[in-house]
């Protein structure tokens, strides 16, 4: 692929950001903010031992918000020509002249802007060409297909690699950015036995190529997961303990974040309304956000408004200690922003002592969930009802795979009924957790 000159790109985007802020000022904006992004990458997919798709990606974007007093207008463009940028700035200004006055609108406060920009080691370009990318994907898929004769088909293996530069600027005089890279390798295969056909996948993702898991390991794990699901049964409808496998438990942390995020709070659209400084988990639960993890997949020294990020406890000894706020929602709530415009960064829950097998023993009889389907979470009430598949456990040992069942409960209760968090955080992603054992949920099946 053509080299991505991140330094030249950075200089270009920085200049663009400054020009756009100046132009907004000329068009009457009292303040403005702009985010510019540019990336370049390669995606190589193989299927059944042959190259299938080569995609060259090259995306640009620029988004601007302008404020005329307390009136806001926004625009974005995925094309960085002078004409498009001019059209975007004009559109944002025109919208700001029509929106209502909103006392909470505006940039984050100037004194909150980040002043330190540590090198978080987020940029590790990978000098891999198409042949090299295909070779690695082929190795990965071959490992999956050779793993077991029951692997009869494949959706392929894909290697993605890319570099990006992002710049954020506002009329406080803050204009900063940084390059980053992201590489991943994924594999999805199909296992078949008699009438039963099951698909599963696995992947690895990291800032640097060196931090990726080995291609063979990814392929084999995809194969193991697909085979383990063969001949799944339905369960009889019953109440039972549920063990959320680590990669699925990360989604429960996602539901927590949503429930304590600013927009849900000021809309009173959350089951954790007024829960600050109250126990929402058992007293041994600690949850932390750390934006400064080296090579972290969501590390950053400043948020989407330029506000300095900070390492902090969201939950300490089971008690909710912090919300997830940007400056707008903070003003709506009469609070201070937590530097979370754009989301949380590298969340982790303190791991327990038990590995996955020990968690099975602790559960004794119950359901291990390895996949969830659908969006059945009511953020306002916490009511939770999802399609699931996984394994039935008796006497602390996996008995057989299960599918076409649902699990249901309420997140508020599920959090309170968390019995253990394992130390088995063996999946990719920016959120770190082991598996979660929940005391009891309703399982619906036959």
């Amino acid at each position, binding site marked *: 692929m053509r080299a991505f000159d991140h330094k030249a790109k950075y200089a270009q985007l920085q200049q663009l950001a400054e020009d756009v802020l100046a132009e907004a000022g000329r068009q009457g904006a009292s303040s403005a903010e702009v985010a510019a992004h540019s990336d370049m990458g390669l995606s190589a997919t193989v299927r059944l031992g042959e190259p299938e*798709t*080569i995609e060259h990606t090259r995306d640009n974007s620029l988004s601007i918000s302008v404020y005329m007093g307390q009136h806001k207008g*926004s625009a974005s463009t995925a094309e960085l020509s002078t004409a498009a940028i001019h059209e975007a700035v004009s559109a944002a200004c025109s919208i700001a002249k*029509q929106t209502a006055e909103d006392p909470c609108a505006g940039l984050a406060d100037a004194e909150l802007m980040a002043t330190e920009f540590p090198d978080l080691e987020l940029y590790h370009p990978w000098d891999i060409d198409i042949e090299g990318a295909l070779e690695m994907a082929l190795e990965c898929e071959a490992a999956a297909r050779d793993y077991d004769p029951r692997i009869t088909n494949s959706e392929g293996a894909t290697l993605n690699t890319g570099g990006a530069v992002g710049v954020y600027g506002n009329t406080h005089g803050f204009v900063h950015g940084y390059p980053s890279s992201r590489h991943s390798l994924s594999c999805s295969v199909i296992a078949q036995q008699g009438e039963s056909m099951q698909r599963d996948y696995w992947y690895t993702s990291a800032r640097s190529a060196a931090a990726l898991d080995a291609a063979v390991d990814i392929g084999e794990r995809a194969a193991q997961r697909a085979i383990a699901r063969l001949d799944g049964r339905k369960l009889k409808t019953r109440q039972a303990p549920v063990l959320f496998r680590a990669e699925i438990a990360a989604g429960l942390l996602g539901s927590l974040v949503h429930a304590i995020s600013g927009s849900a709070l000021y809309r009173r659209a959350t089951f954790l309304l007024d829960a600050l400084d109250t126990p929402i988990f058992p007293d041994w639960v600690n949850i932390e956000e750390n934006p400064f993890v080296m090579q972290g997949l969501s590390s950053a020294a400043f948020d989407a408004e330029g506000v300095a990020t900070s390492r902090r406890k969201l939950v300490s000894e089971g008690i909710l200690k912090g919300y997830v706020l940007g400056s707008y929602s903070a003003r709506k709530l009469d609070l201070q922003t937590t530097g979370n415009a754009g989301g949380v960064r590298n969340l982790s829950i303190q791991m327990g002592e038990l590995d996955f097998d020990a968690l099975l023993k602790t559960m004794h009889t119950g359901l291990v969930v390895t996949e969830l389907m659908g969006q059945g979470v009511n953020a*306002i009430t916490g009511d939770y009802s999802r*399609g699931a598949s996984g394994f039935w456990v008796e006497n602390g040992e996996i008995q057989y795979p299960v599918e*076409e069942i*649902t699990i249901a409960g309420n997140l508020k209760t599920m959090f309170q009924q968390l019995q253990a968090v394992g130390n088995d955080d063996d999946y990719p992603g920016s959120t770190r957790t082991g598996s979660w054992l929940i005391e009891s949920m309703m399982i619906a099946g*036959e």
Partner: protein
Amino acid sequence: MLEIVEQQLLAPAGLEQRHLDLVLDHLMGHQIDFADVYFQSSRLEAWTLEDGIVKEGAYSIEQGAGIRAISGEKTGFAYTDELQLPNLLEAAGTARAIAHAGQNRTVAIAEASTGHQLYAATNPLDTLSGSDKIALLHQVEQEARRQDPRVKQVIANLVAAYDMVLVAGSDGVLRSDIRPLVRMNVHVIVEQGDLREQGTAGAGGRTSLDFFNHDERGLELARDAARQALVNLRAVDAPAGSMPVVLGPGWPGVLLHEAIGHGLEGDFNRKGTSAFAGRMGESVASPLCTVVDDGTLAERRGSLNMDDEGTTTQQTVLIEKGILKGYMQDKHNASLMGVSSTGNGRRESYAHLPMPRMTNTYMLAGERDPQEIIASVKKGLYAVNFGGGQVDITSGKFVFSASEAYLIENGKVTEPVKGATLIGNGPQVLNLVSMVGNDLELDAGIGVCGKEGQSVPVGVGQPTLKVDELTIGGTV
């Protein structure tokens, strides 16, 4: 239409038809079977009302060209947001690297063919003035609040998009389309003591923003969202287990989209990864079921004059009286399977590769009176509104989440129940359809379908129908 699009999309970049020939010529090596260039320019505008004020408006611009070269089962793809000839030629050179370069072949673009005109080629962003858009949102909000003092928060969105595309293919296709799309969504939050609940309603189509002023459509969305939120306030716990389910008409057709629609897309069947692969001509549903995918319905959200490969859209019979009759195809999968494209080659944008996707997918009406269907159930669920769904096309398992549902007891609709996920098996579920109503409805125009990271607007529909057994993910 082609002239308008050429003028607006190509001319500003100094591009003419002969340049498209050049790019295609550059793409076609002797091992390249097919190549195409897709130009796109879109504008989108969205307004949001919350806390009684229209506090946000956003405008977005997207423009670029996607270039694809196919050799056998292999695809090379590159795109650029700079529509100058050198950038297009560079992208073409990159895309064709999928097959080793060989002798060049010359491509001649055929005369533009004609198709149908299902929607007006207008820019919906301009169909209402800024102040009229804002006034509409305020009327909607006031209507929602007027329904009940327990309505505490109303969030209303109004979105208009104008999408202009042009496709030139090595098979001689040169076609363009102008695609308006509008949508309104109303989200209502209600409070009663410590209880809080929500309701949502939305509608839209390929038309102008005036759509929401006609027949009080905008106000009707406000009433419906408030009504649903209030119903949910008195909802009891949903049952857990397997029982008969009566699905209401319209949007509950998301069942068809998930249970069988995705499984009948050509790519999954060519690759043998779908639970429906190799089952053409077999019985996959009860004889009461006839299901079609139809991209030709006037002004519908899922409709297109042509797909994103320049193929005129059509009505494709997927299941006829229970028998599997057809898959949905794009050009690439169709040619590999030795059939014709069904006009289902769609892509999220120029920066994405096309693949077989649904348009408007629905089941034809049956003969039963909907009341008769409900009366036939002793104990079951009557589900009239849904959130999203999901399917695993390989195992056939699918889910969809009810957001408004009621118990049926002794043939009568009784108490509302809380939202619950329903789960079933795609190849089995339509065999369990025992009654089909005479009340076919299409959804109001809110569907978004995601596949391999690409989102496209779609429609669904069905008459009232009874599934003898589905698993309901309640708590009691």
